[in-house]
């Protein structure tokens, strides 16, 4: 895909989010990721298009898993190809932050003593 268009991208930035085995002070055995079929995909595309208007990038890729995941499993990938590194880092960060707050996704954790819906995002730091 990128190769056919000649190598004009100078920078690739990517983010992978993996499932932690610990949340809100409790060990987490596994997690189910729920989405809203149709709306979630639309909003992932909107997030890329919004970033594309702010930064000139050659291509971007966003993948988000749904269903059951276990600690250590990758959950989300955001990758972006740009001419220069600044746009790559900025666009990548912007897209993952937007995804966390705008894409309709919900997490249900299985703990030692039962299940729980995740109520709030980590702050990112």
């Amino acid at each position, binding site marked *: 895909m990128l190769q056919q268009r000649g190598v004009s991208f100078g920078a690739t930035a990517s983010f992978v989010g993996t499932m932690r085995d610990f949340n809100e002070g409790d060990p987490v055995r596994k997690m189910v990721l*729920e989405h*809203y079929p*149709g*709306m979630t995909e*639309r909003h992932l595309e909107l997030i890329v298009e919004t970033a594309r208007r702010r930064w000139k990038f050659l291509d971007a890729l966003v993948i988000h898993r749904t269903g059951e995941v276990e600690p250590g499993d990758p959950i989300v990938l955001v990758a972006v190809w740009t001419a220069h590194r600044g746009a790559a880092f900025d666009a990548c960060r912007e897209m993952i932050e937007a995804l*966390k*707050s*705008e*894409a*309709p*996704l*919900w*997490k*249900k954790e299985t703990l030692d003593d039962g299940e729980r*819906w*995740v*109520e*709030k*995002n*980590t702050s990112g730091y």
Partner: protein
Amino acid sequence: MSIRVRYFASLRDRMGRVEETLAAEGLATVSDVWKAVGEGKPLPEQILCAVNMDYADPDSPVKDGDEVAFFPPVTGGQQRAR
């Protein structure tokens, strides 16, 4: 034709049903739909809504054939700008 109403995540658990269908007569806004399904209780503050897969507000219009969804904040707490 009618309005399809869908629930997701912890709200679905609370409602005890995945979705339902309502006759559109007398329903003009999202909050009207909620009153019809939520035993007349007002829309809980943190519950988000969508019409035809776009984020909406309680006063967003609804019409016959629309799909309305209600769900808790996504993944976490960041409130959508209303």
